């Protein structure tokens, strides 16, 4: 008979406690990371995937570099429009709402970050960014799921790892339990009236409590616990706080529901959402246009999320990611083609904000990747590993990123020590 891995791991964690070993102590010893003031259980990571390869150069604009303007005569964001950050880089004007977060040191940006694999295929590059193993296609699970498998300090509540969307993304695929939720309001048993729904829920709960065995039993217990929790939270009545105004559409809805789960204190530790529309080969636009519209939505969603959370943002880190960047030079259709390195944002209370992170290789053709793209100077795994270690207290980083040796000396410094 199979002993469910999940049950086994759970009891393994308990055994560690009963031996009197403090996992937190192990964490510090193994990684020499300064312990956080708060219990790690409260800390939350939100990953936001910009699918389609965002043009990092028009998101975080190197307006201090004349080469940027020379290479992009039609799509460069004029210096007068850029929201300056440090004299050299600046935010796209449609991200202006994020500037106060930068000023209050809760937003950092990193440039020239990307994959160690050179692929310019969306499919492969997204796959690698989610599996956390560039170049290795056969990795069965995603790195967020592996984090859950290896870090047992956090309790496995049904809402520990949640992806907002119809299906579980690659990044959360694996043996640790994780949920895909298209809509919080529709989670659970469905019936025309609340009374009928509650009755059906109780009936199934009794069926499984009485006759389910093995993994069916543990999973069903988690399921009904989750349903109960959500009933208490009542997602239909949620009102964002502090006048937060989420954008319409899937991204805004996902961020709102993540905020809701965080505030409901249901044990959420990892949340994932994605947003498409970044593959701007044609008529990308500059201060206005296609990319600007996408960025406006992103900026509004992040700003609303931060406002809505208020003090709770102190426990939260939001990390944006995208499979690769785009060509330095604009193409013949006033757009950009698939490139290499891109830019990412790190937002939240624990962030070492108000700074540009990473090493900027410049736009000089001699320093470009294959003569055309921004070169990768930070392996994305160094940033992901830092966030997992310093924010969530992950210990076993080499198990989360197999084939890669995370080295704190290479961490970009996104999280305040």
């Amino acid at each position, binding site marked *: 008979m199979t002993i469910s891995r999940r049950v086994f791991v759970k009891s393994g964690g308990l055994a560690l406690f009963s031996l009197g070993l403090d996992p937190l102590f192990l964490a510090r010893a193994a990684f020499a990371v300064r312990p956080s003031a708060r219990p790690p259980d409260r800390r939350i990571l939100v990953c936001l995937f910009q699918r389609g390869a965002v043009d990092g150069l028009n998101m975080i604009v190197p307006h201090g570099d004349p080469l940027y303007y020379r290479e992009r005569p039609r799509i460069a964001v004029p210096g007068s429009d850029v929201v300056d950050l440090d004299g050299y880089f600046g935010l796209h004007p449609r991200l202006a709402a994020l500037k106060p977060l930068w000023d209050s040191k809760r937003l950092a940006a990193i440039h020239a970050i990307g994959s160690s694999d050179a692929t310019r295929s969306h*499919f492969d590059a997204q796959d690698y960014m989610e599996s956390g193993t560039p170049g290795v296609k056969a990795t069965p699970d995603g790195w967020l799921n592996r984090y859950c498998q290896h870090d047992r300090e956090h309790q496995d509540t049904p809402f520990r790892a949640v992806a907002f969307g119809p299906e579980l993304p690659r990044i959360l695929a694996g043996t640790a339990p994780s949920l895909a939720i298209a809509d919080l309001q529709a989670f659970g048993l469905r019936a025309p009236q609340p009374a009928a729904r509650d009755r059906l829920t109780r009936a199934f709960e009794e069926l499984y409590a009485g*006759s389910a065995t093995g993994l069916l039993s543990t999973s069903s217990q988690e*399921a009904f616990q989750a349903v109960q929790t959500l009933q208490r939270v009542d997602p239909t009545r949620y009102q964002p706080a502090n006048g937060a105004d989420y954008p319409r559409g899937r991204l805004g809805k996902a961020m709102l529901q993540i905020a809701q789960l965080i505030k409901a204190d249901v044990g959420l530790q990892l949340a994932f959402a994605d947003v498409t529309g970044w593959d701007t080969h*044609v008529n990308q636009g500059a201060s206005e246009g296609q990319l600007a519209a996408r960025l406006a939505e992103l900026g509004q969603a992040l700003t609303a999320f931060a406002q809505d959370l208020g003090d709770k943002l102190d426990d939260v880190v939001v990390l944006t990611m995208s499979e690769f960047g785009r060509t330095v030079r604009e193409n013949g259709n006033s757009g950009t083609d698939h490139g290499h390195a891109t830019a990412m944002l790190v937002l939240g209370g624990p962030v070492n904000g108000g700074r540009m992170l990473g090493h900027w290789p410049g736009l000089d053709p001699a320093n470009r990747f294959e003569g055309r793209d921004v070169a990768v100077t930070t392996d994305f795994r160094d940033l992901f590993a830092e966030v997992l270690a310093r924010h969530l207290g992950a210990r076993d980083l080499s198990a989360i990123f197999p084939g890669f040796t995370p080295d704190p000396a290479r961490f970009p410094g996104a999280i305040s020590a």
Partner: protein
Amino acid sequence: MKTRVLLFVATVAARPPVIEAQHAAPLQSPGGHALTPRDSAAHALNRLAYGPRPGEIERVARAGVLRWIDAQLAPDKIDDDIVARREREFDILKYDRGDLARLYAEAQRARQERNRMGDTAADKPDNSPVAVKGRRFAAQVQQLAVVRAALSERQLYEVMVDFWTNHFNVYFAKGADRFLTPDYIEHTIRPHAMGRFADLLIATAQSPAMLFYLDNWESVAPGATPPVVERARRRAWINVGAQHAAPLPPARAPKGINENYARELLELHTLGVDGGYDQHDVIEVARIFTGWSIRRPQQGGDFEFHDWAHDTGDKQVLGIEFERGQEMDEGVRLLKLLADHPATMHHVSRKLCQRFVNDDPPDGCVDDAVAAWRRTHGDIREVLRAIFHGPDFWAATNMRAKVKTPLEFVVSAARAVAADPDTTPRLAQVVARLGEPLYLHVAPDGYPEREDAWVNSGALLDRMNAAVGLAAGRLPGAVATLDSIAPGTTDVQQLITAVDDRILGGTMSQNTKRVISEQLSDVKDPVQARALAVGLAIGGPEFQRQ
């Protein structure tokens, strides 16, 4: 192992006369556990088929389980008229690869046009006619798999199609695989699903869908140049002169060897991860497959061997020499060698035992399957026969030891209520919601064969919702025929007995009987009562197992 083999011989020798007899007496499983003909019929229907339809357990038990299994092992001799008729309603089957390639090219053009208009706001679906058609076809391809699995009399064959589709996984949503996958299922997997493993392996290696998915189509010998680029180079030379040679068109400059297919061929399709090869072998295999490529979509996208791209040196794989100059034959020879390699036999047999016997396959089952493979040089039917006749298949510990996959759950539910699904993609959508959308597993390993990959809280709730919806007739396109289970009645005991008997094969627990009976106690409408009983049974814990 010796004791196992003895036991195996003893049980097989002892069983057939007992089981073949009409209304056979309970037969002994190796554990000494008595199996009634109904129990063995239910077990066989759960594993070799997508679960019983109402009344099917009795039919199979009466005909003799082993006789039914033998019949399933010869699918060509089973009449499957119902499916043939239903297939004619699927437009997608009227399109060959060339038609689909043209549709794909048209969709690409339309998308570029849309991009040019700056009309790509995210979350706004592309509703151009060609995009709508593309989506409808994709949904049909998925639904067709569900319909065949639900309706076919060749149940074992459909199970094997699913098994191989997963073993030789491609990703439907990767670029050109959007138009190559339907053809892959129809003309690569299905014709070979119960033939010889070597033929199936060669077919997948030469399938455009796999060549594209694992990038082999662009794998070329280092320094090799396609004739088109070569012509362009000469033209540039003539036009511009030696001093100002124009740069090559950068778009499709050959990149050299791509190892993806070679690696997955060894690790996943044949030898297995511990199959005794190393990185050197991977590179040599990749060199052998240089030049195995595809024609452009505009030219139909067929398999094509490019001799200009083939690595013409000597190669050595697993210590075996492949002399230069054999071109495409090198690859075919290698595939035959891999198909009959002991590590391949073990790796694939193990997966088959996982699928049919237990997530943790018993060694004895694997040994039996390997022996049959060796004896018949990879005749898939004989490997399966060895598994189904082996003692592990019938062992009490392996009965109901597996949890149904999303596809198995949805199809078995549809069969349990005698639904007659049409071309609307409702059931395929449920399969997707439960976590394993058809043909959409990104990584080349296919959906895992172990329950922890698909059993989780969210998916379980969705199973309950799907069960209740299906029983209540809320799934258009898959209407349940509950009369085949029981007449509408408020006689609770009659309902519970019928549902236990015809849907759960008599496995309903006392607890489930109690809960259902409580739930039905105040339902006045006989049709509602019946739907609720069926919905609770299919959404409940017993039905999740097989």
